[in-house]
């Protein structure tokens, strides 16, 4: 299990935004996720934008389906960060099959 700290990737930022930023971060996370389960640590982050979240997590949820939730977890999420991630999961996981 590897922990990826968002505030070490995006230093001195309380709000992480941007589709391109989300795409960049997804590439970083997917490299690690291919080898081991991952915890994304959002300590110190107040908000992530919907665009960032959709671009970071949307393709992962869409491609991997609900199975990915066994190996990808989230830590130290503010209420705003949690709401945005749940919204992305809701939209991108709704067409995938439930875990058997």
């Amino acid at each position: 299990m590897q922990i990826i700290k968002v505030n070490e990737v995006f230093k001195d930022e309380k709000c992480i935004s941007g589709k391109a930023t989300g795409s960049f971060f997804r590439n970083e996370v997917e490299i690690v996720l291919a080898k081991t389960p991952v915890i994304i640590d959002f300590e110190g982050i107040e908000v992530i934008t919907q665009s960032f979240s959709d671009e970071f997590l949307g393709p992962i949820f869409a491609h991997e389906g609900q199975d990915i939730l066994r190996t990808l977890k989230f830590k130290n999420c503010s209420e705003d960060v949690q709401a945005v991630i749940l919204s992305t999961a809701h939209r991108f996981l709704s067409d995938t099959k439930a875990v058997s």
Partner: protein
Amino acid sequence: MNRYIQRVNFFNCCPGFAQQREESFQRHDAGGRFVPITEIYSMDNTDAVAQDIIRVIFSQMVAPGESEVKTALSELMDNALQHSSSLIGCIAQTQLYRNSFVDGVILDCGIGIRQHLRGNIKISAEVTTDAKALLKALEPHISGTHNRKKDFERRENRYNNAGLGLSICCEIMKRTGGFLQLISGQACVIIDPKGIQHIPIAGWPGTVVVFRANYQKLAHIADIIKEFDIQKSKGDNLKGQKKPEFI
């Protein structure tokens, strides 16, 4: 007025307008007051541009609503660059006021909102005027790319889009006591806590978004997202859907 226009680098950005006279003032640091006109050409750096603007504008204070303002700037820049097909990219300017408000403007010279929404097969028949298109664009999940005709040459197919950015920005402005003004084609609307006003204008070929937020207030973005999700969930079959785990 001419000094202000010079100071925000208008003539550097728009060399087609002849500068009236040489600058007769000393350029002081704009930190804590305004950010001169910024030209953004690529979606690759909207987060960095928005962060730089926030750093300058709030350089002399701690503002509780800093993340809300950055959210608005970044989402609006991404929208302009992804959807407008604007040949000049987009332009941003931000101004801070001592009465706790911050104004921002994001402008492009692209295809406009009506033309963009006409590519959405679910709603193209509804957007018969610019005014209808502006109101439609403010609805959550409307301006996303998932219902669009496929055109892989378009920049917008490179990234996902839920169609929430503009709706979230509008709610942030309303909930902090500010407003969002949307201009595109022959239409202009202002949305504030009192409601929606249509303003007659001469017209603008692309899109202009002006926002005002109270940076001392929090908009509670989680509440906005949850409300949008409830609207979206109606009719969805969520049985058996697992949720992400938060430790």
